[in-house]
């Protein structure tokens, strides 16, 4: 029986959209920007609106996928934030109008993130989070699952500003990364499929794998070069750029009978422009293998620093006690 390969596409889409939440962070000299393919270690008040990506899936035959997403992150305390990230997707199925694809919202994602440690001198930060994809909140047409997926995640960031002066050229570099383990709320799902030609019914059992989600970014900060290493007198536009390469990968680890164990993901070279209260970024999306996609896609994002735009209201923690974190909304 002919089966359109939605499950693989949906798994890839869900895992890809699972990394839409973003943040930004200042640690000593270092400004860690919001990144697109993976989440960065920052805990802050901010909003990405919109993030738009276009890519071709790794299915056979492949088809185009358009994602338009947003993310709103709110600090509850100085070190703890909750974010919400809806994603609207359109899948352009192969065959044009005959198989016109599907569209709708993915399951809503919520991320709870806590900043564990921050060291200004060594430009180091580590945070822990829990990402929950709420089953049943998205459209079935695009394969949003009916069950929750829980992903405990560790995030880190390290700037290389503490390198010796002899390595001054390398001090603007920074590395960020994340490691998570996606645990579906169910181990398997069963779908009854009716063959449109014969009317015969078939039972499709799909095992839901536990997936190691991992990734990293390597950044070269021109703002850091100018303000902490050497002011070369470059144009202001150049001094606001951060060239970046991101990698976002997923490896099924267990319960992989139907999913397989192949690592999928993308490598995203791109560039970020920093404004005073916002940033704009664009990246190429390069699949790491055939299962991850069949051509180079693109992703772009407009991101707002709400802590800078609304420092006395929306952009400060609901509960805070220190001056450098902004005044609390309620009392002190």
């Amino acid at each position, binding site marked *: 029986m002919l089966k359109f390969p939605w499950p693989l596409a949906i798994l890839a889409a869900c895992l890809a959209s699972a990394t839409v939440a973003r943040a930004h962070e*200042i640690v000593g000299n270092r400004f860690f920007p919001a990144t697109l393919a993976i989440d960065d270690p920052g805990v802050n008040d901010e909003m990405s609106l919109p993030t738009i990506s276009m890519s071709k899936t790794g299915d056979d035959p492949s088809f185009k996928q358009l994602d338009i997403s*947003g993310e709103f992150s709110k600090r509850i305390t100085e070190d703890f934030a909750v974010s919400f990230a809806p994603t609207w997707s359109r899948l352009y199925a192969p065959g044009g109008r005959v198989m016109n694809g599907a569209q709708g919202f993915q399951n809503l994602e919520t991320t709870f993130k806590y900043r564990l440690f921050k060291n*200004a001198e060594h430009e180091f930060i580590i945070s822990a989070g829990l990402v929950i994809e709420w089953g049943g909140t998205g459209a079935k047409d695009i394969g949003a699952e009916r069950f929750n997926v829980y992903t405990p995640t560790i995030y880190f960031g390290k700037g290389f500003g503490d390198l010796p002066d002899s390595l001054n050229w390398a001090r603007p570099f920074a590395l960020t990364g994340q490691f998570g383990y996606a645990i579906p709320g169910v181990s398997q799902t069963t779908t009854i499929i009716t063959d449109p030609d014969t009317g015969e019914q078939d039972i499709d059992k799909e095992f839901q794998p536990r997936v190691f989600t991992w990734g990293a970014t390597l950044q070269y900060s021109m703002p850091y070069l100018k303000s902490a290493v050497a002011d070369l007198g470059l144009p202001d536009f150049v001094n606001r750029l951060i060239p970046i390469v991101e990698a976002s990968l997923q490896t099924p680890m267990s319960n992989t009978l139907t999913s397989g164990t192949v690592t999928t993901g993308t490598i995203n070279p791109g560039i970020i422009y920093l404004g005073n209260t916002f940033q704009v970024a664009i990246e190429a999306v390069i699949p790491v293998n055939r299962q991850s996609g069949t051509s180079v896609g693109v992703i772009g994002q407009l991101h707002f620093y709400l802590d800078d735009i609304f420092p006395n209201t929306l952009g400060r923690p609901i509960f805070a006690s220190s*001056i450098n974190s902004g005044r609390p909304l309620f009392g002190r």
Partner: protein
Amino acid sequence: MRIIAAIALVLASTGATVAHALLDHATPRVGSSVASAPKEVVLSFTERLEPAFSSIEVRNEQGASVNAGKATVGSDRTQLRVPLKQLPAGTYKVIWQVLSVDTHRTQGNFTFRVGQ
């Protein structure tokens, strides 16, 4: 999509007022070598500062402070300056910490060289 564009436009237009105070430029220039010893260090920031919570310390290679006085904020509140003792040739580290008027604290450091 129109709603998204409208929200983005509102946020972009709203966001031109205050932000984290980041170092825009410095005199002596960040990472530079100067032939004669500067009398002061002047830092220009991207936002206005709270004088009571903004400071500069300049240290020599032994880690001793070479400040000749207290750091002061200029009338436009975006410049922070500190007078220096007579500096012999060497490498100096400028360590700054400021609080912007919207209560965001930022910090940083850089070096400059005299007579090299």
